[in-house]
């Protein structure tokens, strides 16, 4: 069974209920361990896990400010680790290295409101809202929750795949709020939803988190043929 480390922050602002929800989403498929950032922030410790799940909080904020997060986290993912970053965990992308690791950068959240999340798709005419129909999106239906709307810049040089968008008035195809990429030998995913425990109780989002972790651990993969831009060559 793949081993998952959930970074449990001591931040009192953060509801323990969110951890309870994450635990209940993943417990049947994975061996779960939770630890504080301070206790696990070394490559030797992280290397024992197949995926690391990061949410947010003050402890993460401090490790971004003093940059202590960069070397162990990048070494871990570069050498085959999986990383799932949720909601405010995007704060880590204030550091260029970690925005490269994740494939995008946060540009701020708005106050909570009703948001409809949709998965991008390639329609039968080949018009793509994302680059591919991604395996993380398999079986995920549109869902609506009360959440903070996040804005993001995707990294120009990242080979990211878009996996989640929210409906937005100005753009019929929605705005990107979830993506994933291969980084060296590892895999990273970012998903924006997650303001309250309620968001994590949504059945579609629960499936998506489970799929995301299955992908970061290597349990499921995208067919290579999806990326052959010129399959006739060679």
């Amino acid at each position, binding site marked *: 069974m793949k081993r998952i480390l959930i970074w449990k922050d001591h931040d009192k602002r953060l509801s323990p209920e969110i951890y309870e929800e994450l635990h209940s989403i993943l417990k049947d498929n994975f061996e779960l361990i939770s630890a504080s950032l301070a206790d696990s922030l070394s490559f030797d410790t992280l290397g024992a896990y197949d995926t690391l799940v990061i949410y947010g909080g003050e402890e993460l904020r401090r490790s971004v400010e003093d940059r202590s997060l960069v070397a162990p986290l990048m070494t871990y993912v570069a050498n085959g680790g999986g990383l799932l970053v949720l909601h405010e965990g995007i704060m880590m992308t204030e550091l*260029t290295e970690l925005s490269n690791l994740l494939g995008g950068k946060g540009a701020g959240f708005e106050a909570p409101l009703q948001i409809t999340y949709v998965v991008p798709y390639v329609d039968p005419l080949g018009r793509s809202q994302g680059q591919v129909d991604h395996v993380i999106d398999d079986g995920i239906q549109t869902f609506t929750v009360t959440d903070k709307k996040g804005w993001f810049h995707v990294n120009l040089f990242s*080979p990211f795949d878009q996996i989640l968008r929210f409906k937005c008035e100005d753009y019929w195809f929605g705005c990107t709020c979830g993506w994933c990429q291969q980084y060296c030998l590892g895999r990273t995913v970012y998903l924006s939803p997650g303001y309250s425990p309620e968001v994590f109780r949504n059945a579609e989002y629960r499936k998506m988190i489970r799929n995301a972790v299955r992908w970061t651990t290597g349990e499921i993969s995208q067919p290579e043929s999806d990326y052959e831009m010129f399959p006739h*060559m060679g």
Partner: protein
Amino acid sequence: MQKVLVFGDYGDMFHPLTTPHDGVQEALERKYKVLFTSEYAKLTAQELSQFCAVLCYADRWGDSVSPELTAAIVSYVVNGGFFFPIHFGGAFMDTSRRQIPKNGMATNELAMLIGARFMPAHAPYSPLTLTVEAPDHPIAKGISDFEVLDEPFVYDMDPFAERDVILRYHFAKGSYPALWAGSYGNGKYAYLCLGHTEKLFRQKIIQQILLNAVDWGCEKG
């Protein structure tokens, strides 16, 4: 004596490792032990960690550079190493053409590391005028504006990356970054776009730039 590694492909048609070999050796040998290699498979993060600087003159990224080597370079740099690609060594293009990965890159991670992506079409070997943009940067020590013959490589610069552009070259009606450097994790990187000929690496000013860059990269803190 600190050690410096230079890797590339001796048998390459366009950019063989013989091109920088003697010039780099001459530039660095008084202060550093310089080793050259084409054996990419041996370059693990642990192996790289014994070098204070790793210079890259690789050309055949698609053929030779594995994700394992990319992982080793990223790990080496974020844990305190200095990665210094030179000329086409910073292109990271998949030149094997068997399968074009996304973005046409063999390794996006290294393009992200140096904060720039090579733009594949370039003008031919031409006279270029170089000007110093950051005279206070340690790599610019003793360097003033100069002219060389070289290939005018152009890079798409990552707007989010932080870097110091130290030299720019002027060609036709444009001016482009030619040498830039920055920190990454606990380590550093630099990139020099010049380096097409053996003759270039023999020039005193180029050797001074190489030595300054390695001195800066190998200095801890």
